[in-house]
């Protein structure tokens, strides 16, 4: 399942909910990844824009990949502002086996960074500044660029 929230994630509640949803479903491994906003470069926090239609179809494709491994995947992400030491992202894999779950969460988070239609901004002195230096062009980008 994909869960989108306005502002920071309530990490303890989300992890508790996910654990309770799956604890009786015979998964041997539950591997969560929690992303927290760190203090660096004098930012006050981060802010996010999402494009839900493509985010949902991207996530659905990963749910199908998980199904093939008898695993399930859950993800929560913030939209809007998330301040220092708050969390904006949680991904988790539930899988029969530990090794498959560890590999899967790594692949999933890598593709999330490269492909999920989410835009990050630094919040600094009241300004919202697009984090272009930390952003990745989606595969296939540039088809409208000048080819001369």
């Amino acid at each position: 399942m994909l869960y989108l929230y306005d502002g920071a994630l309530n990490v303890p509640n989300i992890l508790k909910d996910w654990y309770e949803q799956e604890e009786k479903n015979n998964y041997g491994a539950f591997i969560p990844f929690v992303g927290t906003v760190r203090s660096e470069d004098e930012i006050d926090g981060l802010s996010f824009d999402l494009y839900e239609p493509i985010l949902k179809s991207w996530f659905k494709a990963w749910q199908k990949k998980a199904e093939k491994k008898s695993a399930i995947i859950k993800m929560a992400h913030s939209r809007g502002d998330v301040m220092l030491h708050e969390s904006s992202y949680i991904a988790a894999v539930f899988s029969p086996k530990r090794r498959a779950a560890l590999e899967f969460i790594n692949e999933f988070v890598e593709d999330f960074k490269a492909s999920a239609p989410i835009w990050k901004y630094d919040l600094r002195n009241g300004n919202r500044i697009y984090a272009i230096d930390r952003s990745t062009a989606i595969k296939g980008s540039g088809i409208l660029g000048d080819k001369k």
Partner: protein
Amino acid sequence: MVRIEFLGPIQKEPLELQITNLNELAKILQDDKEMQEWLTNSAVAVNDTLICSSNHELKDGDKVSLLPPVCGG
């Protein structure tokens, strides 16, 4: 008409254009100086499906979205 939407940090209002493929859109947007850098690094979706070729045909009612570089998490 085809609707063009600019997502995330691209500060541009949507356009409604009479075009039949993405090459025609490319020519129109390349004339906009503020769009030139975005055109080189943005992905393109038609009706919320990512497209890899500028030869892609468009029909009345289609929605084209430009997706600049991403950074979730």
